[in-house]
């Protein structure tokens, strides 16, 4: 697969993502500058983590107006796989490609720690082949990851099976303690209606090699590669 990694001013997980795609998985990766208006020859797009435009105003609020976002929106509308990680997730929310908004973490602290998330559906571009209920360990690093949607919208999201990841304990239980940032219904990741756009707060690119404490994140990228191979 050919993965385009979008680089905003303030992205800081772009190289990690590139490294995982190219050197860990052995696929093709390229950087796409936020001022570009086209994505080039890519099969999938990743919006990486970081603090695009310093996250001034709101997380992702300014980045969504970058020229490249029009191309990302069109790519997504054609069914192209788009993955937003952490700040990338926040940008996709601001752009209206994914539902919800992020509030400050419930304890108002920046949280940098490993968490466990449970895969809630295998029917997305990054969870295909990972059985529902699988617990993955990946780090989070964010101050605004407290997923919010009004209750009626949450009900609809759940009804459509669009909650992709939930914060859980190591043995897969949803508890208040495991939901470290206070997200509505412990939601750590969601997808769009067509299931080709996914956002998650944990960082799979920082947990794709055993040397980093967990290689669970590798499965996210492998699932993406598998989807593209079938296409």
């Amino acid at each position, binding site marked *: 697969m050919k993965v385009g990694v979008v680089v905003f001013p303030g992205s800081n997980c772009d190289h990690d993502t590139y490294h995982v795609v190219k050197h860990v998985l052995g696929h093709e990766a390229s950087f796409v500058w936020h001022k570009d208006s086209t994505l080039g020859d890519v099969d999938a797009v990743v919006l990486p983590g970081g603090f695009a435009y310093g996250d001034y*105003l709101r997380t992702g609020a300014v980045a969504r107006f970058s020229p490249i976002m029009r191309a990302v929106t069109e790519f997504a509308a054609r069914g192209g796989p788009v993955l937003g990680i952490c700040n990338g997730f926040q940008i996709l929310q601001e752009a209206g490609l994914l539902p*919800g908004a992020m509030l400050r973490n419930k304890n108002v602290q920046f949280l940098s720690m490993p968490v466990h998330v449970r895969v809630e559906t295998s029917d997305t571009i990054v969870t295909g082949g990972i059985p529902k209920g699988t617990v993955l360990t990946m780090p989070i690093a964010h101050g605004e990851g407290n997923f919010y949607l009004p209750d009626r919208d949450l009900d609809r999201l759940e009804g459509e099976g669009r909650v992709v990841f939930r914060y859980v304990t190591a043995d897969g239980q949803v508890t208040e303690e495991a939901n470290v940032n206070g997200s509505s219904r412990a939601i750590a990741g969601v997808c769009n209606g067509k299931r080709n756009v996914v956002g998650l707060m944990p960082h799979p690119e920082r947990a794709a090699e055993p040397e980093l404490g967990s290689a669970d994140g590798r499965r996210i990228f492998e699932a993406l590669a598998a989807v593209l191979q079938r296409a």
Partner: protein
Amino acid sequence: MAKARVYVTLKKSVFDPQGKTIHDALGTLGYSSVADVRQGKFFELDLAPGVPAAEARRTAEEIAEKVLSNPVIESFRVEVEA
């Protein structure tokens, strides 16, 4: 020169961790009469000379809706001073 003031606040139904932290701190300082605190954002837009107040309001409201607030969690109010 018209000035537009935009107040962005979290919707009532949305939990405000920052407001709660400030409220807790006020309690620690002895301000027990404060029942709640909500934190928001304030923007002051200076319009170019000659822009009429009505246009200043339209522009400020459009900017507030499109950029300065996120309708999922926030609402806004605009005041214009001619």
